[in-house]
C-alpha cells in the first residue's frame, strides 16, 4: 500500500519518536509512506484564530499537492488532520474565496490511526504481534481534533471513540474505559495561559490514575508534548508527584511487533517509561 504522508512540523522536533515509530511500523505493515514534496505548515490554531483565508489556503496548498500524486493523504497529527479536513470541506463548498489551487476531492484524507483501523490492515496488525503487551494497563486519549467536530472529521463515535482502544487490545494490552478520552489538553495554552493549562492536564492525569491506568496512549504530538513534558512542572505547582508514562500509539505497536529500535524511542520521553515496561517484561 502506498500513501502520501504529511508529517507536520513537530515530527522533525519534539515528536521525533512519533515519526521514528511510524516509519518502523509502516515498514512492518508494508505501507509505503511517500512524504508530500515541499509541504507547508497547515497553519494550526494560529491561522484560524487570525485570518479566515489563511486558515484554508495554507492547508489547501497541501491538498492540491497530494491530489497530484493520486494517493490518499495520511497525517499523524490531530491538528494537521483537522485543518486539512476543514480545508477539504471549504473547497468542496467553493466558498466565495479564490484560493488559487485546484482540488477535486478525489483523494481521502486520513489520520494515521484511521489508516491502521482499515479492515484490510486489522488482521495484518494482529499477525505482526510477536510480543503481546500483556498486563499493560492503558487509557486511550484521543483528545479534541481527531474526533471533533464530527461533521468535518467524519468521526463515527465522537463522545466515546474506541478505534484506539481496539488497537491496543489487538496488541495485547488492557485498555481501560475512562470518561476523559476526548477531553482537551489545552493545546497552545501551555505557553499562553499556564494556569488554565495546568488545570486541564491535571484533571486528565488524575482521571487516568483514578481509572487504574499505568500509562496514557496518544495519537497527537501536541497532546503528547503537553502531557509528557509538563508532569514535573505540574507536580511542583500542585505539590504532588506525577510520574505517569505517556506513549504515542505507534510506539506501542512497534514494541508489540518486536522492533529492536523501540528502546531509542522511549529514551526520548521526559517521563521515563522504561521502568514500567521492564516491570511488565516488555523491555
Amino acid at each position, binding site marked *: 500500500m502506498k500513501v502520501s504522508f504529511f508529517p507536520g*512540523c*513537530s515530527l*522533525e*522536533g*519534539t515528536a*521525533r519518536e512519533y515519526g521514528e515509530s511510524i516509519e518502523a511500523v509502516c515498514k512492518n505493515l508494508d505501507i509505503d509512506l511517500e512524504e508530500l514534496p*515541499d*509541504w*507547508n*505548515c497547515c*497553519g*494550526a*490554531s*494560529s*491561522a*484560524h*484564530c*487570525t*485570518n*479566515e*483565508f*489563511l*486558515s484554508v*489556503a*495554507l492547508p489547501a*496548498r497541501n491538498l492540491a499537492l497530494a491530489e497530484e500524486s493520486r494517493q490518499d493523504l495520511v497525517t499523524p497529527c490531530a491538528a494537521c488532520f483537522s485543518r486539512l479536513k476543514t480545508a477539504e470541506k471549504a473547497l468542496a463548498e467553493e466558498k466565495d*474565496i479564490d484560493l*488559487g489551487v485546484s482540488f477535486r476531492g478525489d483523494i481521502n484524507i486520513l489520520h494515521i490511526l484511521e489508516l491502521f483501523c482499515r479492515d484490510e490492515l486489522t488482521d495484518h496488525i494482529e499477525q505482526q504481534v510477536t510480543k503481546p503487551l500483556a498486563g499493560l494497563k492503558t487509557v486511550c486519549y484521543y483528545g*479534541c*481534533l481527531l474526533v*471533533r*467536530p*464530527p461533521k468535518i472529521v467524519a468521526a463515527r463515535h*465522537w463522545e466515546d471513540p474506541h478505534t484506539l482502544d481496539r488497537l491496543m487490545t489487538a496488541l495485547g494490552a488492557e485498555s481501560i474505559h475512562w470518561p476523559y478520552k476526548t*477531553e*482537551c489538553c*489545552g*493545546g*497552545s*495554552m501551555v*505557553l*499562553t*495561559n499556564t*494556569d*488554565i493549562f495546568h*488545570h*486541564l492536564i491535571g484533571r486528565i492525569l488524575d482521571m487516568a490514575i483514578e481509572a487504574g491506568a499505568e500509562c496514557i496512549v496518544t495519537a497527537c504530538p501536541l497532546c503528547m508534548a503537553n502531557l509528557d*513534558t509538563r508532569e*514535573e*512542572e505540574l507536580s*511542583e505547582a500542585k505539590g504532588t508527584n506525577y510520574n505517569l508514562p505517556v506513549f504515542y500509539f505507534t510506539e506501542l505497536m512497534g514494541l508489540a511487533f518486536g522492533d529492536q529500535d523501540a528502546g531509542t524511542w522511549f*529514551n*526520548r*520521553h*521526559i517521563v521515563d517509561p522504561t521502568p514500567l515496561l521492564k516491570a511488565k517484561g516488555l523491555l
Partner: protein
Amino acid sequence: MPIQTSVVNKDTRFRDIIVETIGPEIFDCYQCSKCSAGCPVSFSMDILPHQMIRSVLFNQQEKVLAANTIWTCASCETCTTRCPNDIDIAKVMDVLRQLQQESGRPSTVPKVSQFHAAFLGAIQKNGRVHELSMMQDFSLKSGDLKEKLKTGGWKNDVKLGLKMFLRGKLKLLPHKCRAVADVRKIFNQAKEHKKA
C-alpha cells in the same frame, strides 16, 4: 441571563459580519447552555459561550470583543459538536478573535495573539514552523522571557529545554521548504483579502 431589551443595539452591522461567516443558524440559539456546560475552560471565562452568542445577536460588539472568553477558549470544538441547533460556536469565537485583532485594540490576554503572531511569522519565514526559533521569538516579543527572569521561571524552561535537547527532541536549525515563495504569496493574498 434575563433579557434586557434596553441592551439590544439596533445597529446590526456587527452581527451581520458574524452571520455571514457562521450562517443563519446562530438565530436558532435558544440558550440551552449546552455549549457552556461542556466547555472545559468555562471556569476561566468572564462571559460564558451561550451568553456570548446572545450578546452577538444583540450586537453588543464592545462587550463581546472585550471579553476574555475569546482568549481562553481552547478551540476544542466541544460546543460546536454538541450544539443542538448546529451553530458553529467555535467558529464564532474564531471570527470574534479575528475582529478583535483587526480592531487594533489591546487584548485582555495579549500573550495569545502574540503567540499566534510568532507562529504565523515562523510559517511566513520558512514555510514550516521551526519550534525552537518560534518559541524564542514568542518569548522575546511577548515579554514572557522578561517576566520569567523576574520570577525565576526561566530555570524551569532551561531545565526542560536541556532535557529535550539531550533526548534529541530539539531541532537546532530550521528546514526551509522550497515552497516558501508559494507560502508568502498566500500570506500576501490573505492581507489583500482582509483589506477587501
